[in-house]
């Protein structure tokens, strides 16, 4: 066998193996989505959006309580997490730069990003739920905020650092004070990237179950009082899917489907923002 023949065989072998691996990976994704869509659409109906939870055996049970609860929990987490994360990221990129404090914050936030979310749930349980004596929506939102924070912080930091320093210098050279350089020039340059980061962070916390089990817990009925336990799609899905009742299991599929579509939409939106930016 000549050297060239050998090289062609190895080349083909590597190509076939890597293609096969990719196909297997994507295959599983399609399988999951397929099962989800088939079971989910089957379980979907108008009553799901109109009705609250019902005891097993009752055909009128819905997910309205979980949908609204989820929306409230994630909205508050976004309300707290985004400004905190963006401001902290601004500090890292524009003020801290390579300073020791900034580098430490970056390392810690990277560790936080990979921390198991159940640990964060347990932490919020210890500092909020245990002292107050009961589960609450606030505790749930705080747990989600903590999960969201490092993601928003690091994306903001990364996106701001991508803005060329000559752009900052040009603004300074016109006599702009630092805060105006940041808010009027740097933020504008990084807008699409930061927005994408925020959307992906919202998508990430919207799919969390473990931290909510310890904090907002659950409620089978509609509750909008943040100081009380609150239903969420994820925890409802967990409860319904593991129950022995067929109608509850069906609602679990519906919850899984709705949640996946919501997160998929956020992800696609995030990618569209980035594409639009690159397209320029």
């Amino acid at each position, binding site marked *: 066998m000549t050297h060239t023949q050998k090289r062609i065989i190895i080349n083909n072998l590597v190509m076939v193996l890597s293609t096969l691996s990719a196909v297997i990976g994507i295959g599983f994704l399609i399988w999951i989505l397929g099962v989800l869509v088939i079971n989910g659409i089957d379980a979907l109906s108008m009553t799901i959006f109109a009705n609250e939870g019902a005891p097993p055996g009752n055909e009128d049970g819905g997910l309205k309580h979980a949908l609204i609860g989820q929306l409230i929990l994630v909205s508050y987490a976004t309300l707290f997490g985004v400004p905190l994360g963006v401001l902290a990221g601004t500090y890292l990129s524009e003020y801290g730069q390579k300073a020791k404090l900034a580098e430490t914050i970056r390392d810690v936030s990277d560790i936080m990003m990979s921390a198991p979310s159940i640990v964060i749930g347990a932490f919020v349980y210890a500092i909020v739920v245990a002292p107050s004596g009961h589960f609450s929506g606030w505790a749930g939102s705080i747990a989600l905020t903590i999960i969201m924070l490092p993601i928003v912080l690091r994306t903001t930091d990364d996106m701001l650092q991508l803005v060329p320093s000559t752009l900052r210098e040009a603004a300074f050279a*016109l*006599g702009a004070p630092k805060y105006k350089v940041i808010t009027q020039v740097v933020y*504008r340059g990084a807008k699409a990237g930061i927005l994408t980061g925020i959307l992906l962070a919202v998508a990430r916390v919207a799919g969390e179950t473990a931290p909510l089990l310890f904090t907002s817990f659950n409620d089978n009925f509609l509750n909008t009082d943040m100081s009380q336990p609150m239903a969420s799609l994820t925890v409802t899905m967990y409860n319904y899917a593991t129950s022995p009742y067929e109608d509850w299991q069906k609602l679990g599929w519906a919850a899984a489907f709705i949640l996946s579509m919501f997160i998929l939409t956020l992800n696609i939106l995030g990618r569209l923002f980035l594409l639009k930016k690159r397209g320029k």
Partner: protein
Amino acid sequence: MATIVDITEEKALKVKDFEFTYAGTDAPSIKKLTMPIAKHSITALIGPSGCGKTTLLRSFNRMHDLYPGNKYNGEIIFKERNILTPKEDLIKLRIQIGMIFQKPTAFPMSIFDNVAYGLRLQGIKNKTELQGRVEKALQDAAIWNEVKDRLKHDANGLSGGQQQRLCIARAVAVEPEILLFDEPTSALDPISTAGIEELIVELRDRVSIIIVTHNMQQAARVSDYTGFMYLGELVELGRTEELFVTPKERLTEEYITGKFG
């Protein structure tokens, strides 16, 4: 000691025993440099890479202050005062001494907002005044006819040469006394370069101009005075035609004849 021609005009800047040291280094990048800059004329700074010409230029509007740890010594006199003192108001200084960069730095906003940026920073809110001054600046930068119908469009949609002229308009709009050009055409094609050079010459009547360039022909084409720098020192400052035809220093002659650099 450097050979410095006698400048008869008024001075825009007087550099005296100026030393500059970058953060984290011991050796100064500019050593005991003394140099007058003539008012309402164009002074070009030439020299091989690393000779300190850009470092010197960025000292005139204290750009180095944006990064911690850089050190200035000596004096740069502008309007009877040393601008290197800590009490110098950098915002005011940078309004009076504008800067154009190597790469065009159009802000991610509309063409109009780009030019109005410096004016708005100074608190000008009146719409008619803003419009008038933006239009005048764009005319001064010879780009008005190309952009007058799309002032609301994103400035990043302009070509490189147009963006650079937009940046010049933005700098001219605040009516500075000195304009610093840091290799303003090195990222542009020859036609845009010619346009920018023409513009620089036209601006001379209103502002004093200092231009750093890698291109000796450019220095010869546009400038009245040329300073040749080498290893952080000024070797020779002369009238441009004299410096290029009959340089006084051997080092200058070797550089302009291409023996090194």
